[in-house]
């Protein structure tokens, strides 16, 4: 987990997170295919074809992203770095903040694996439902729906990863990108695969918790380092360029702001210090500003966690709305179903549905089954028998309607879906 010349924790986690997301959709798709037609006799050829479509779409998206990402990162290091070098400390600080915020944004959402999965199911359902509606317009998109969806998803996640990496790796060595990226992709795929396999949910969750803790350690270090960089910039302005000359020895830091300072060559700290520094992202020179930032960051994380738990419990942030973190927004996307259900249930017309169980009371909360039936009925035109889907899946058109309508209306709070539900 240590940052070194060849490994960067931030890059690893970004790739891990994005791969996880991409692999979740692939696994959801594959699981759906397996359930939908994989176990139906005689449809094996169709099933394989569709599975191939999924993999083809994913790999195509991934390849394109590799090319684009490679070009971007290469261009970045070739041309970008020079621009910053003039006032490097400022930029390092800014990029540390960017990286810290990105990680903070992604981190907590990762712990809502179920919601993440839900979100993707929702998206898949929507996409398929859309396909259904446009059968006449584009037979291509319906024919290759199973390829287009993972393709678009993988591409989107990859581009996101590239953008994030671009932000994060400004403070890291370019040599660190390949290894950490590879490790992140492998770990993300592994977790995605175990989700697909339906492995021990508990173990996955604990793994996610541990990795999220590390992620936030890294983010705290980055935020603290950002302050440190700003202070260092200020100091080098005062000193006039001599800071580089003195290395990490006396004079490399402002004694007035120093909480502690350990020279690099101090044998007392050398071995242990390296790990400490890498894990916590701290400098050998602790300043009041950076220490404060580190602690305040954790306070902010704690507040954010409390607020989000509060919101999950009560459905809103109360008066603390303005303090909600970006990560909470992420959850907003996944919540509407239950929230909508809860809201709807609170409404006068829908007293029958309990607030906490609305999502799960619905045997097919994301409308996956029904959307698949749509897909399959589309596919039917493309030589897939209609009976297979109907027999193997519980079809709940109302549930489908509720979810697809909600998504179609682009109503994140799910008001309209609530309306639909209550209309039922």
């Amino acid at each position: 987990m240590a940052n070194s010349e060849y490994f960067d924790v931030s890059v690893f986690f970004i790739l891990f997170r994005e791969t996880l997301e991409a692999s979740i959709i692939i696994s959801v798709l594959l699981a759906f295919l397996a359930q939908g037609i994989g176990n139906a006799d005689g449809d094996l050829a169709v099933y394989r074809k569709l599975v191939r479509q999924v993999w083809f779409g994913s790999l195509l998206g991934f390849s394109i992203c590799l090319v684009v990402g490679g070009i971007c990162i290469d261009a970045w290091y070739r041309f970008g770095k020079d621009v910053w070098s003039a006032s490097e400390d400022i930029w390092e600080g800014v990029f540390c903040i960017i990286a810290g915020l990105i990680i903070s944004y992604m981190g907590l959402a990762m712990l809502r694996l179920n919601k993440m999965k839900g979100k993707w199911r929702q998206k898949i359902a929507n996409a398929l439902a859309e396909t259904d509606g446009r059968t006449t317009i584009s037979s291509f998109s319906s024919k290759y729906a199973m390829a287009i969806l993972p393709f678009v998803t993988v591409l989107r996640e990859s581009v996101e990863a590239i953008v994030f990496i671009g932000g994060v790796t400004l403070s890291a060595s370019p040599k660190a990108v390949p290894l950490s990226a590879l490790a992140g992709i492998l770990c993300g795929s592994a977790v995605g695969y175990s989700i697909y396999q339906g492995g021990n949910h508990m173990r996955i969750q604990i793994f996610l918790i541990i990795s999220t803790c590390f992620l936030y350690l890294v983010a705290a270090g980055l935020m603290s380092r950002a302050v440190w960089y700003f202070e260092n910039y200020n100091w080098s302005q005062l000193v006039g360029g001599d800071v580089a000359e003195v290395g990490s020895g006396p004079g490399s830091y402002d004694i007035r702001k120093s909480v502690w300072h350990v020279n690099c060559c101090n044998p007392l700290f050398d071995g242990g210090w390296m790990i400490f520094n890498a894990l916590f992202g701290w400098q050998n020179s602790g300043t009041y500003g950076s220490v404060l930032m580190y602690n305040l960051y954790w306070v902010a994380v704690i507040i954010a966690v409390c607020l989000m738990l509060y919101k999950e419990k009560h459905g809103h942030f109360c008066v603390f709305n303005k303090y909600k973190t970006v990560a909470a927004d992420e959850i907003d996307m996944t919540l509407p179903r239950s929230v909508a259900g809860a809201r709807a249930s609170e409404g006068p017309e829908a007293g029958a549905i309990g607030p906490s169980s609305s999502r799960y009371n619905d045997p097919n909360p994301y409308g996956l089954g029904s959307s698949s039936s749509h897909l399959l009925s589309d596919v039917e035109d493309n030589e897939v028998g209609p009976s297979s889907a109907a027999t193997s899946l519980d079809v709940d058109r109302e549930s489908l309607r509720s979810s697809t309508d909600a998504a179609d209306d682009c109503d994140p709070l799910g008001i309209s879906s609530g309306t639909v539900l209550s209309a039922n």
Partner: protein
Amino acid sequence: MRAFSLLAALAVSATASLAATVQYDFSVEWVQANPDGAYDRSFIGVNGAWPPPPIECNIHDRVIINVTNNLGNEPTAIHFHGLFMNGTNSMDGPVWVTQCPVPSGSNIIYNFTVDQPGTYWYHSHFSGQYPDGFRAPFIVYDRDEPFADAYDVDTYLTVSDYYHNSIPWLSANKFLILTNPTGAEPIPDAGLFNDSQNIKFKVEPNKTYKIRIINMGALVSQYVWFEDHDFQIVEVDGIYVEPAEASMIYITVAQRYTILLTTKNSTDKNYPMVTSFDTDMMDTLPDDLVWNVTGWLTYDENGEFPEPALIDEYDFYDDFNLVPYEKEEPYEPDYSITVDVSMQNLGDGVNYAFFNDLTYVAPNVPTLYTVMSSGNDSTDATVYGSNTHTYVLGYQEVVEIVLNNFDPGKHPFHLHGHVFQVVERSDASPDDETFLTYNPDEPGTINEYPMRRDTVYVRPNGYFVLRFLSNNPGVWFFHCHIEWHLQQGLALTLVEAPAEIQAQQVIPDDHYAACKAGGYAYEGNAAGNTVNLFDLTGEKLQPKPLPAGFTARGIVALVFSCISAFVGMGFITWYGLSDLKTTEREVAAIVGEPLDDSDESK
């Protein structure tokens, strides 16, 4: 040794009857001047003029200088650089070593006999005053010099670096401050030849000139050469040497070289003479700095004054190889002092210079006055304070100073009251990471008759070994003559034969009067304590060292950071586990629906 004593005795008897008294009255004042034509500034001048007048006398003369401080805003004093002051230690002049600062409006008389021939200089030894102008040559003529018949004209040439801002201002705002952690010395603004530039040094053809070259600068050594004119070095720092052929000299601040230069036969051409900064000694080279100063050996005032030719390398004479005219074999040391030079930052963030782990901090009482008021305790270095870095030397012993330079800069070290044999001087170390240190078991090059002088430089990360005979009772300062480094504390004090000082020397009343006028202590130990000489309460000390690693403050900060990190991770874990609980709770409400999604729709 015997030969030397005999010669000296002869010289004394031969010239005693000729000895005269030379008297100067100096009113020290601020004077406006503009030596480089670029900047008008205040200098410390004498009698309304700047530069101050050279002091000239014959050997064995008595010199009396009556100094009145009319600066109005700061004290002053004069040190006579290179003069032994044998028997008159109080006339040496370094403030806080042999006297108090002379406050404005006060008066002090320097009264001594000069028994050394050659080229010296005088300068304020207080608060960076000499680079602010208070310095000038001090020349002692000697009819009996070994090369008395070898020249036609006796003259001098001073070289110097020069700052537009005053030294105290630079110290307070640019140098001895937190934001100059590397101790980068302020860069001079210009160089000077005879306190001017573009000088026309008039010469006649086919004559030999004895030119006494003095570097009166604050920081940089200078390369000095005369185009197309080789010369002979015949004296360094008041010591006659066997004539040495040279085409260029390397002269550090405070050093003197006397050369014999024979002019050409024709007057067709004027020849540039150049003094060029040793730019290695400067932290940066500003674009607008002109570090060469040119003058001309002027054969024909109406002729052309050509630009100096570019040179490929500085091919200067290595002074280590000079052979004194009066030959002495290397002394065998009775007492050895080893000091390591380094530059380090102390707790106030300022960069200081160290001999071993001490940076010089001046005492409250001039060390000589402590000698005079400490009776039998004067042989105990403790009474001179913790930060004056004092060594007490016996009488008539050979003292050795081994100096290992753990700094990648060149440093010209000067010892008051003596010339020393430069027994060994190493090369610079090959790189910044290695240090050459003196090992008596593996001596380097030792010349048969080591060069003697009073100011010698040590090379980057190298060392030198100096030896001298403690035959001059007094308190003598040993320090780097770079003014900035002296301000950083690169100095130590030698109290030589304190019992003999007490027995043989008297401090004149007007010297004590300067202390009284300025409100300075002049009795007791370094702290000014006259009752218990070993009680140093109130002495001035160097700042505390930088906090080493983790102090209490650092540990507290670290512990708090760890706590908040763990608490924060605890909250994250809580949040993460609540996903499970929420799921489980919600799933529990669903009949026949297992936890995992993959199972969910099976």
